[in-house]
């Protein structure tokens, strides 16, 4: 895989807020890349730097082998799909999509052909002559997408692409975006605060917090092997126990010793043990942890148990396939496969 965009030591400060703090990462050719983080983590600043609407205080950004920072936004082979979609309200769908091609001075026939093609690709040919105000949220999003890909940019940036859609349409569009990305063969960089969205679409995810890259990995890696407490909390549900590293596990007061997978942390170091709800089993023998079921919830395919453990404020969450056999008020033993539990630096 060749590198398309390389970002080196980017710094950007607004007043006394460090929006980007020594950010370095590489985006590969043809991948679906996600910048994930809570609001104010710097992801939007990074996106705007890539688009050319913001300049870093220091650092380097290259596209292919060419320096990108000195190039004005209208000269970059990069297009951005805005969070608000930013469709031109006084132009029809067709004219909105044609706008970028017209600025390149393409012949009229070519413009018409490419606009028709891209509208077909995103599935909204029938809206071509309408104004943005006459479209539904999903249709507007497709127009914005069509407008952003019609110029065949080398890099497509998407700012919170699904946030303005309702839940049902959002699911459809997630699949649609993935399909399109394969079909048009453009590198996508999506900015989102929604971890499910990033997990379901992206090939690789950079998790940002306070302007720093916390972890850059494939979704499964991020989920199974978070390298920081923030990532473990931010991605999915996790049961976290504060304690001290011991041989083969973590000593958690006042609960006791809990087995975990290997760690590079030194024995005696302060750490957290993280274990996912679906990796915890209710067992009759060999329990590593004991508690009382205080609540059960049934979600159709899954059940969730909340187990109160003495010496711990929040209940331990356990999920089970199908309907649970355990009822509220029962004392249960909990166990897990030790390598499934991860040790995180405190």
């Amino acid at each position, binding site marked *: 895989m060749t590198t398309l965009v390389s970002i080196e030591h980017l710094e950007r400060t607004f007043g006394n807020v460090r929006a980007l703090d020594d950010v370095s990462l590489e985006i590969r050719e043809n991948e679906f890349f996600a910048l994930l983080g809570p609001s104010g983590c710097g992801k939007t600043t990074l996106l705007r730097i890539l688009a050319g609407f913001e300049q870093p205080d220091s650092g380097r950004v290259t596209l292919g082998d060419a320096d990108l920072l000195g190039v004005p*936004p*209208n000269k970059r082979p*990069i*297009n951005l799909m805005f969070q608000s979609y*930013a*469709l*031109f309200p006084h132009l029809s769908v067709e004219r909105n999509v044609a706008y970028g091609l017209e600025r*390149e001075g393409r012949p009229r026939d070519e413009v018409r052909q490419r606009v028709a093609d891209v509208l077909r690709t995103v599935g909204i040919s029938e809206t071509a002559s309408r104004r943005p105000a006459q479209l539904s949220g999903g249709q507007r999003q497709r127009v914005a997408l069509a*407008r952003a890909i019609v*110029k065949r940019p080398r890099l497509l940036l998407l700012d919170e692409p699904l946030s303005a859609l309702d839940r049902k349409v959002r699911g459809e569009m997630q699949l649609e975006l993935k399909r399109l990305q394969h079909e048009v063969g453009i590198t996508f960089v999506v900015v989102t605060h929604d971890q499910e969205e990033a997990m379901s679409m992206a090939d690789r995810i950079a998790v940002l917090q306070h302007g720093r890259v916390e972890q850059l990995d494939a979704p499964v890696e991020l989920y199974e092997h978070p390298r920081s407490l923030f990532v473990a909390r931010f991605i999915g549900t996790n049961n976290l126990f504060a304690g001290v590293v011991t041989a083969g596990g973590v000593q958690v007061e006042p609960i006791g010793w809990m087995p975990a997978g290997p760690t590079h942390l030194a024995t005696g170091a302060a750490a957290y043990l993280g274990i996912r709800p679906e990796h915890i089993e209710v067992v009759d023998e060999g329990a590593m942890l004991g508690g009382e079921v205080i609540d059960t919830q049934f979600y159709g395919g899954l059940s969730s148990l909340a187990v109160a453990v003495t010496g711990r404020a929040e209940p331990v969450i356990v999920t089970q396939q199908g309907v649970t056999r355990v009822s509220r008020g029962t004392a249960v033993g909990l166990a897990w496969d030790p390598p499934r539990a991860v040790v995180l630096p405190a």
Partner: protein
Amino acid sequence: MTDALADVAPPRIAATSRRFRRPGWTIIPLVLTLGFLYLPIGVVVIMAFNESGSPFHWSGFSTQWFSSLAGNQGIMTGLSNTIVIALGSTAVSVVLGTLLAIGLYRHVRSGWIDALAMGPAVAPDLVMAIGLLGVYTTVGLTLGLHSVLLSHVVFGTALVAAVVRARLGHVDPSLEEASRDLGASQLTTFFRITIPGILPAIIAGGLLAFTLSLDEFVIAFFTDGPATPTLPIIIYSMVRFGITPEVNALAAVLLLVSFVTVLLAQRLTGVGSDE
């Protein structure tokens, strides 16, 4: 009274909806107020069509005052002076006001400076008039159509700026970025995206400036030269010797023009805020 009401009191919902449907006595002040507002206008319009031309007795419908108006050389000169000033000052105000509004929107973070720019549109005419005359005298500017035009540009620009500035607050700022992102230069973006987005406000502001200039008296009276009276000044001098029926006809015409223009302006701003 209370007992009687209690006896027949229908369920609460019916009572409320009935109260809204039947306005009752509250219609009276409404009619009186509207009547008070429109009585003078009504009188002028009716007199314009009165054959005798006297406000005290109606002698039949006639449009003769309109033809006699067209034949009045003094009024026609005043009308053409006024139209030249109104069109000229509006054209300049639209350009300057739009640029001012965009500049304020982009570069000014202070509400005070924002308000300062709108000042000339709300300052008392008399203050503006005295101030402008003072400036013209100081710099040695001759008085005539050009000086009135310049004066009208001052409040016209502020007016257009106020209307356009308000509109800019409702325009998605990422539209301009989207245009840049799609390969447009700053100039192309300005003419193809920025201006169309605020066009309804520009037109509305321009129409308002036009109507205000059309019947502006105080500032014109102070800053005009004797050779080039505007229409309001001519009407004023005519009225000093008694109201002639021609003035009524003229007022009716002006009323129509102003009404249509303001309605147009309102429609345009209204349509704009819908989007």
